[in-house]
């Protein structure tokens, strides 16, 4: 099993980051993300928590050995569930791969919480694990590949989101400075 965890500060308020979440794609840094669909959403009238389930479609070339061994294709799908709780100012996003999931899973968790100085803390963890009934060498290779791919995409995702947020809120900031 691979475990990856990281944190980062976004230079925007929690509300702005969470509003921006829905505007992250498409982005030239993340050209592998092709489609996004909401498949379920509920707003809890008691707690105010919004739960959203989305399916994200990606197109990213897989190495030949993966295609040969596991029959994967360029199209990969991810299920993402997010909870946004305005009363505690917590947003959590959990994602897991639907494609190749009979061989291995990559479970990613992201959390956005306000930091003490009005900015937003981003925390991210990922667990990459192959299913038990696999030939060990192939399992290790697949895990390593998924971990590397995860790190590349996470890096691109952060660059993209930083970009989106500064574009979205730049005008407001200027107005704020002027008023």
């Amino acid at each position: 099993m691979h475990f990856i965890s990281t944190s980062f500060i976004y230079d925007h308020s929690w509300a702005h980051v969470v509003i921006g979440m829905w505007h992250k794609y498409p982005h030239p840094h993340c050209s592998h993300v092709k489609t996004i669909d909401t498949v379920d959403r509920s707003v809890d009238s008691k707690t105010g928590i919004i739960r959203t389930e989305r399916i994200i479609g990606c197109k990213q070339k897989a190495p030949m050995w993966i295609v040969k061994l596991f029959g994967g294709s360029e199209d990969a799908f991810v299920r993402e569930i997010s909870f946004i709780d305005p009363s505690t100012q917590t947003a959590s996003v959990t994602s897991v791969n639907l494609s190749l999931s009979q061989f291995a899973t990559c479970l990613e968790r992201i959390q956005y919480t306000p930091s003490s100085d009005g900015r937003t803390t981003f925390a991210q963890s990922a667990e990459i694990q192959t299913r038990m009934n696999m030939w060990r060498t192939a399992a290790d290779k697949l895990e390593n590949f998924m971990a590397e791919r995860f790190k590349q995409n996470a890096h691109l995702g952060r660059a993209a989101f930083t970009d989106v947020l500064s574009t979205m809120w730049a005008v407001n900031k200027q107005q704020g400075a002027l008023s």
Partner: protein
Amino acid sequence: MAHSLSPECTPLKHAYDSCFNAWFAGYLEPTLTVHEQREKDKNPRDYQKRKAEEFQQNCGKVWESYRECVQKAIKNKGLTEVLDQAREENPLREPPPPLDIPSHGGSSQNSK
């Protein structure tokens, strides 16, 4: 905005996303009159309930059409089975417990 799984659902998806985004921005950063703010502070539950109803009223109809379209697309792409399996393995009906936050800017990795 990103595309939908199926091109025929994309216009419905865009309409639904725009509706949600407009509602959501107001949900997180409400511009309230003094009177409304007082009501909200006095009775946050009523306020939340009203906002949930407002979402349903504004976006409920376009959601029904979009959902119908995307359900069909999921079936056509052969994703129904893997999605059902993922939901069974990890229902995620409730928010997960908080993450341990590594020190700022830090990252760690290990494999076993």
